[in-house]
């Protein structure tokens, strides 16, 4: 999937990847890749800066933790992040329902 097609959904995807629990940056990329059967392969160069932006906006919280002798930055959703995710989700449902209805061959479009 092209990066630009995902552009408007980057924040929602990142928040969704953290819904089940805290993850570090690369684990988020892998989770989205695996969860979409490889369709969503976000360029790494957009994920880390986006996580920092979400953190500044108070939607995720990043903390350093030590796992397996390695210091790593782990992100988790804040309650504001959870609320934003819910909004993103319902916006997406409305959007995909509307576009889906129009793109179907059976779409109820008036004849010209």
């Amino acid at each position, binding site marked *: 999937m092209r990066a630009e097609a995902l552009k408007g959904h980057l924040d929602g995807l990142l928040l969704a990847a953290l819904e089940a629990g805290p993850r570090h940056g690369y684990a988020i990329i892998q989770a989205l890749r695996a969860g979409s059967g490889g369709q969503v392969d976000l360029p790494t160069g957009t994920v880390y800066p986006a996580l920092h932006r979400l953190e500044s906006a108070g939607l995720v919280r990043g903390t350093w933790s030590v796992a397996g002798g390695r210091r790593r*930055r782990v992100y988790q959703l804040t309650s504001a992040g959870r609320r934003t995710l819910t909004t993103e989700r319902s916006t997406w449902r409305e959007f995909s329902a509307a576009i889906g209805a129009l793109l179907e061959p059976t779409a109820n479009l008036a004849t010209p």
Partner: protein
Amino acid sequence: MTSPIDDYITELATALPGPRRKRNDILAELRDGLCDATDAHRAAGLPAAAAIHAAVSEFGDPRQLATAFRPDLAATQARRLILALSLTAPLIVLLWMHAAAVSDGSGPRALSWHLLAAPPVPIATAALGVAALAAFATLANCGIVKPLIDHPRLATRSAAVAGFTVATTDLFILTLLGTQIAIAPPGSLATVPVTAAALLTAARSGITHRATLRCIRAARANP
């Protein structure tokens, strides 16, 4: 021979502006991410050297990555500058008020010293109030500074305007002090409080000026 991961991090470090701690955090996080990617490629069957190369190319051009971090770093720097200015403002006002109050004011006074020596209490209270509110707003991330977070460019612009205004005002105050020293009878100024206020004002002017320039540089899309 250095590892391609080290080279990548060095290149990223060169292109990354910003507050030192946040910058070091980003570098550590990206190094960790590159190691994760290497592990993933090894697990997928690549030999060690090829896995490292695959990880580095997956992360893309380090300069582009640095550019993507810039707005957020610049905004952080801008918010810190605004916070520092709002915290030091009342301190400096109070120091000058104190310096003027304990100096002998019976001799001739420059207009400026007159203003400094007799600032009505409401001004000081208002200065303290505004500073406390600005500091709280910046720290608590409440409505007033929300736009500064959502629009990094606005944060940088406000910080730049505030920074240069404060730095210039500080220099102006010092010039006024010079005038007062020139016309006041010798010994009429309280040496210690006036020196303390002047030194602090000069220091803040210099630090603010540098911080403001750093802030503007960080905000530039292309270094």
